């Protein structure tokens, strides 16, 4: 079966007065039907930019260059705005990080849900209302009829995020992009919303791109993972493999930062950290972007752009050092 989304060599740049900011560099990936692909990385690594670039929502000053962007086999990279608008909200939908501000304060919940449906379907107001009501029930909102008549400020953050999810599902999209959907919610609500997303993804047979900085979320949600650092993909592979044998020192560093229950009774156990800071993305990045923070760095790392190597089928990483050497060190320090 063909991929839902294929992205080839996406670059996003911002021309600034101090130089060109390379926010996303040569990012390529595929999203298969019915899979959850997680994009993980720290703030500013370009994961949200990648999502916005796919949805064509970048700031007007951003320059997007992409070799190919195919949605269900159709090239949508150079689609005129009007045609692209027919896809957005219908075949592909997005869930944003901030449920508090993603709903328009002057319209009722019902109005905003119905709007999506009426925009993309030849439906009556009555159809749209029925659809909205059934989706509110599906996302677990009690008393949907009453909620539909309320304004966003009358709902809590968790409820609003459920409304956003319902809105994204109104037209049963093939692809849903969730940009840190639970970051703004408190921990107990986070778990509920994640479980809900996973259940609905399976039920609606959608593909999902899940953007997060939380490896815990990745572990319980994703089929495959892309690890991004400083605007590029440094490692990609099936979730199990990434967690079992991370092959890029950055991924290894991220995993070391996860608290381990087994280490709790070990008095000497300390949570791992990654020393140093992310390099500036203004101007050309030479060599490996992680070189100045990497414990395994060698001179060759700083010379040229590091090519992608394959660790196994479906598992690739962007590092000069063979994973056998870095992994041994990782397994030692992580235990």
């Amino acid at each position, binding site marked *: 079966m063909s991929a839902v989304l294929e992205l080839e060599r996406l670059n996003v740049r911002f021309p600034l007065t101090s130089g060109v900011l390379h926010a996303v560099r040569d990012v390529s990936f595929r999203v298969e039907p019915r899979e959850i692909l997680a994009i993980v990385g720290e703030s500013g690594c370009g994961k949200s930019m990648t999502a916005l670039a796919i*949805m064509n*929502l970048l700031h*007007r000053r951003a320059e997007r260059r992409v070799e190919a962007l195919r949605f269900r086999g159709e090239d949508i990279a150079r689609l005129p*705005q*009007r045609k692209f*608008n*027919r*896809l*957005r*909200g*219908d075949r592909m*939908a*997005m869930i*944003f*990080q*901030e449920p508090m*501000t*993603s*709903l*328009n*304060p*002057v*319209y*009722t919940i019902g*109005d905003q849900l119905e*709007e*999506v449906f009426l*925009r*993309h379907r030849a439906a009556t107001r009555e159809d749209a209302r029925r659809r909205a009501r059934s989706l509110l029930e599906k996302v677990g909102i009690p008393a949907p009829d009453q909620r539909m*008549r309320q*304004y966003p*400020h009358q709902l809590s953050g968790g409820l609003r995020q459920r409304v*956003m999810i319902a*809105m994204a599902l109104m037209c049963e999209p093939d692809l849903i992009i969730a940009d840190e959907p639970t970051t703004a919610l408190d921990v107990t609500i986070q778990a509920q919303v994640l479980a809900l997303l996973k259940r609905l993804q399976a039920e609606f047979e959608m593909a999902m791109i899940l953007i997060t900085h939380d490896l815990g979320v990745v572990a319980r949600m994703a089929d495959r993972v892309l690890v991004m650092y400083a605007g590029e993909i440094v490692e990609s592979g099936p979730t199990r493999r990434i967690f079992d044998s991370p092959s890029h020192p950055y991924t290894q560093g991220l995993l070391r930062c996860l608290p381990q229950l087994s280490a709790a009774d070990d008095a000497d156990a300390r949570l791992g950290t990654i020393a140093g800071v992310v390099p500036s993305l203004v101007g050309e990045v030479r060599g490996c972007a992680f070189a100045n923070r990497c414990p395994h760095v060698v001179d060759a790392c700083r010379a040229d752009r590091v090519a992608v190597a394959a660790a196994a089928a479906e598992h690739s990483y962007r590092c000069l050092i063979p994973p056998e050497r870095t992994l041994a060190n990782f397994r030692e320090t992580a235990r």
Partner: protein
Amino acid sequence: MTGPRGRSLRSLARRAAGNASVVTSGAFLIAITVIAVAAPLIAPYDPYAHDLSRRLLPPIFFEGHDAAHLLGTDPFGRDYLSRLIYGAQISLVIGASVMLISGLIGTTLGLLAGYYGGRIDQVIMFVVNTRLALPIFLVAMSVVVVFGTSITGTILTISLFLWDRFAVVVRSATQQAVSRDYVMAARSIGCSNGYILLGEILPNLVNAVIVIGTIEMAYAILIEAALSFLGFGIQEPTPSWGLMLAQARQYLFFESWLLYIPGAALFFLVLAINLFGDGLRDLLAAGDRA
């Protein structure tokens, strides 16, 4: 469907009832509007009828008054109260028309500049700055010289001078709204730019536009009076408060009530509009906090 508008208007009315300055100024404005609309029924005399035998009669609270003319008569013997009542029509029509026309121009330009930014913003801000550099009275004078005087001409001239505040405020409010997530969310569900501007952003700016509208209406009424006073606005024999003031000027020392009466009318009308707009701003801001 009750709709958002219906419900928020009802709650607004409830809160307005507890606000003394809104109630007082609102009642005054309603009264003056009713008087202006019903002028032919209320005015005791024809405002254009001369009667030189009864010129310059003082109003009822002065000695030597004639009970038939409550506010006395002007230098041509026309009933001052009737002229005052008809003058309210001119002030309100000009104030309301200018508010609508300049509001439409300014809001449109502000929305476009704030939403699209870049080159469009630069061009619109250049137009705003050009407009700020134009002296209204010189331009009004040239318009009168070239096109002559008419109420329509006065309305258009003032309108072309009062849209800048709408444009600047709407522009900055739009800039703020554009960066809100709901605008990006609207784009992500496939809304066009036009829909986002009119359907998503504008409803959030209505409060600000209404408040500026009241300020500009008061301002338009004052400018009309000033233009008429100087002879560039409404012309004799049409009753305008500014024109009445201009005529009263030469009687300042002996028949000073000729000056006080239209002056007080103008003062109270503008004060009421400003108080109303001010109170409205407070009420609408309270609504935003809810």
